[in-house]
């Protein structure tokens, strides 16, 4: 998720080099069939995406499974997969934290605690909830920043795809950008959120089908997990590569340069909860569920699948340490020497084990991941623009038909801005880092604002707005401080041994704390809203609808408990 910033830039390749993968006719056919089917889905869904509810919220008729897979898939971009596989090669199993403690508790919390408030308030977006809870100023601040950043992220995703296709397949940058633009624009503008969700589910299944074979064959080759661990320890000379928590006692005892406080509170509490419970890109998928029970089950189902993803993302990175006959190197070294970089580990492992057909399937899974990432950003942008900016501040009384038309046009404009961003980034790669850092500035404090709004009746409109603003300014200030003076990292992360990753974790933690403290102080200094106005918005002021499941095993809390138990067991096993 937020880690993308540094990973993206690493794909820059200055010297031309032969592509990693050579596709044959069957592989090309596999890719072409994927493009054909997503365009067909767009045309098919056009006929049932005519009202605002249909176009922006997929008719609120998705089952728990579809909403759940879409929820987890919206975050499963190809760049993330390739980046984290590379991180696993570089840092070992520590990279799995971003899939476990960095996701599972937050997803379960969303399903069990937060979803009822999002769902029964019938809002169309997270800024929409902020409007009901804190008023239009907070909605405007959140909506504008989200819309702006989302559409820029879409462009970065587009550029990243083109870059990876160039490195992996040798495709021309312009060809990749315009092919993906035309396809995404067509199916999202035609089918709206429903189309984006359909494609996210397809992408999710393709990633499993295309990538799962690598760890299976890899484990067969090395002789199982036990032998793999022995080989990694032998090759790297450090047992911490195969332990999740043992090396996190201090900043200097692990390759990431982080400690357990940053990992538990920075990643596990703030970044993870901020992303999975308040980023509208993912929350929108759950809001499309057809009833409250499905909306609560969707993140829980998503959490179950999220927990398995390290098997085909982190494990290939670890396997590469053992089986590749050469060492991967940082991108800066790769550019200078022509060696392969960490981020190429997933394509390299695909090429190692996959013959014709299977290789095309793996590449299609990567392309699908990029395209659904773009589609997800564009559809979320369109919803927030139409409801939270245009409908809230520019044209409040338009018809539903008008808003759908505006939604389609905003998607078109959003796609064009994305293309512009892609070309801008091509000529000024540093913009990519800035934009993604900016995106991360809003997530951590937004979680403070939303969670206080949901759980604390005393939070006031002024408290919410100024808390969000102060938290965001803190994140920007800390980032700028370290940018101007890299030695300041020791103060931000509280250790001279801290590395760049620690900055992200601690910056998020401080900005969240500032948001919460400012919100609490200002709330106590200002007039609270009457409790009657908070019905449906705040815990304690809301009578939650009773759910009547026929059997105990149908209850969301039971499944959340099962997932939580597995999560604990995994962490102990890989301790």
């Amino acid at each position, binding site marked *: 998720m937020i880690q993308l910033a540094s990973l993206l830039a690493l794909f820059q390749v200055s010297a031309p080099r032969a592509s990693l993968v050579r596709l044959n006719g069957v592989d090309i056919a596999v890719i072409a069939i994927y493009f054909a089917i997503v365009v067909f889905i767009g045309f098919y869904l056009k006929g049932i995406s005519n009202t605002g509810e249909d176009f922006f919220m997929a008719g609120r008729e998705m089952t728990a499974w579809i909403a759940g897979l879409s929820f987890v898939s919206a975050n499963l971009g190809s760049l993330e997969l390739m980046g984290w596989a590379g991180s696993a090669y570089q840092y070992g199993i520590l990279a799995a934290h971003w899939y476990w403690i960095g996701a599972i508790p937050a997803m379960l919390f969303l399903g069990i605690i937060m979803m009822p408030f999002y769902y029964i308030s019938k809002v169309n977006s997270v800024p929409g909830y902020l409007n009901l809870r804190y008023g239009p100023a907070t909605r405007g601040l959140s909506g504008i920043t989200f819309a702006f950043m989302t559409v820029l992220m879409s462009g970065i995703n587009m550029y990243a795809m083109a870059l990876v296709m160039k490195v992996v397949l040798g495709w021309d940058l312009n060809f990749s950008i315009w092919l993906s633009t035309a396809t995404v624009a067509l199916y999202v503008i035609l089918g709206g959120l429903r189309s984006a969700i359909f494609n996210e589910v397809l992408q999710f*299944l393709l990633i499993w*089908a295309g990538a799962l074979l690598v760890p299976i064959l890899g484990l067969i080759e090395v002789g199982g997990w036990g032998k793999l661990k022995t080989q990694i320890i032998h090759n790297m000379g450090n047992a911490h590569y195969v332990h999740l928590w043992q090396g996190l006692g201090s900043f200097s005892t692990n390759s990431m340069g982080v400690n357990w406080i940053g990992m538990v509170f920075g990643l596990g509490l703030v970044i993870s909860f901020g992303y999975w419970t308040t980023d509208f890109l993912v929350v929108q998928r759950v809001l499309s569920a057809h009833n409250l029970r499905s909306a609560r089950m969707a993140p829980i189902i998503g959490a179950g699948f999220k927990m398995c993803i390290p098997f085909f993302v982190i494990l290939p990175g670890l396997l590469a340490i053992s089986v590749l006959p050469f060492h991967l190197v940082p991108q800066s070294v790769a550019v200078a020497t022509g060696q392969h970089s960490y981020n190429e580990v997933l394509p390299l492992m695909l090429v190692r084990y996959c013959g014709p057909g*299977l290789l095309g399937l793996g590449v299609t899974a990567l392309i699908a991941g990029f395209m659904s990432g773009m589609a997800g950003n564009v559809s979320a942008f369109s919803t927030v623009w139409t409801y939270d900016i245009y409908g809230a501040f520019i044209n409040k009384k338009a018809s539903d038909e008008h808003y759908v038309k505006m939604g389609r046009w905003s998607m078109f404009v959003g796609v064009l801005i994305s293309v512009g961003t892609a070309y801008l980034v091509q000529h000024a790669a540093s913009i990519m880092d800035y934009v993604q850092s900016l995106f991360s500035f809003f997530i951590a404090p937004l979680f403070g604002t939303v969670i206080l709004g949901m759980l604390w009746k005393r939070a006031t409109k002024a408290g919410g707005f100024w808390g969000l603003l102060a938290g965001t300014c803190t994140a920007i200030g800390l980032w700028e401080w370290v940018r101007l003076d890299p030695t300041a990292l020791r103060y931000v992360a509280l250790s001279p041994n801290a590395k760049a990753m620690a900055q992200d974790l601690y910056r998020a933690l401080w900005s969240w704390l500032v948001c919460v403290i400012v919100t609490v102080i200002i709330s106590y200094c200002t007039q609270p809203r009457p409790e009657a106005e908070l019905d449906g918005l705040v815990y304690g002021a809301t009578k939650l609808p009773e759910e009547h499941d026929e059997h105990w095993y149908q209850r969301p809390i039971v499944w959340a408990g099962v997932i939580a138990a597995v999560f604990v067991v995994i962490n102990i096993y890989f301790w």
Partner: protein
Amino acid sequence: MREMSIWFFSGVLFLVYGILIVAAGTYEFFHPLLHPPVLNHLHASIWWGAAMAVAGLVYTIRFWPQRKP
């Protein structure tokens, strides 16, 4: 109008992909590659493709488009 679910699309895609991959694997079985991938003797294309085709077939039949009532 017949309503097509996402599971039907997924089934069709997996069925087509499965058939293509099994066909490629079978061809490769009789015409070995010059530079085969590691563990090629396990013929992953054939069993993985077959598993995809079977899963795709099951989903295609199970979620075959029905007329809306």
